[in-house]
């Protein structure tokens, strides 16, 4: 299945793009997408532990299972205001 991946701020700058797509086995989780991104962009690895996960515009946890067409976002610590 295919899911959309969004990256913001420093994560976006590491990857060089705010949006991409990944192909995953059925049953893959949000954490699996993060692992995939790290394998593609090793400089993302230091962000593990501070990155937050969102699924379809809501916070989620890395164990959440994905479905075709889902939108997964990786969020550095927020600093709005």
């Amino acid at each position, binding site marked *: 299945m295919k899911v959309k991946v*969004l990256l913001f701020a420093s994560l*976006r700058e590491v990857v060089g793009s705010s949006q991409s797509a990944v192909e995953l086995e059925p049953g893959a989780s949000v954490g699996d997408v993060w692992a995939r991104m790290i394998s593609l962009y090793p400089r993302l690895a230091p962000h593990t532990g501070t990155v937050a996960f969102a699924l379809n515009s809501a916070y989620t946890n890395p164990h959440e299972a994905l479905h075709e067409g889902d939108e997964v976002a990786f969020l550095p610590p927020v600093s709005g205001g």
Partner: protein
Amino acid sequence: MTDPLSGQPHRLIEGRSLFEVTDRPLSVDDLVNAVLTGGDGAVVTFVGTVRDNNDGRSVVALEYEAYAGMAEAEMERIGVEMISKHSLHNIAMRHRTGKLAVGEISVIIAASSPHRAEAFAACSEALDMLKATVPVWKKEYFEDGEVWVGQGAG
């Protein structure tokens, strides 16, 4: 977008929602008008602006990036919680994105309530929640460089 409390559509201001991320300059009067209804006597606002310094370092500009759709949903979630917890009439939150000069407004929260103390408390608490959970990121520009705030590894 509908109001989770009443099931009615949010009142719109010139077609804009009460919870909005925008790259246009923010107006406090706009947001005050957005939350005012005839029954209100008091609106409290918090207005965040770009400071010319941070931690002793001179700041020349800030840039805000947002996950806009999620940020608006999070602001609405916070707003709904504030309305119910503080007996507000209404609340609105607006965050700006893009590059802002010193003195420009980055965020406004406006709360209307029959009870002034509740409106003050709701504004302050909503800001704390916004800073903690709304997906917006701030980059500081100095004379000699730039840095995303609080994203050490970046």
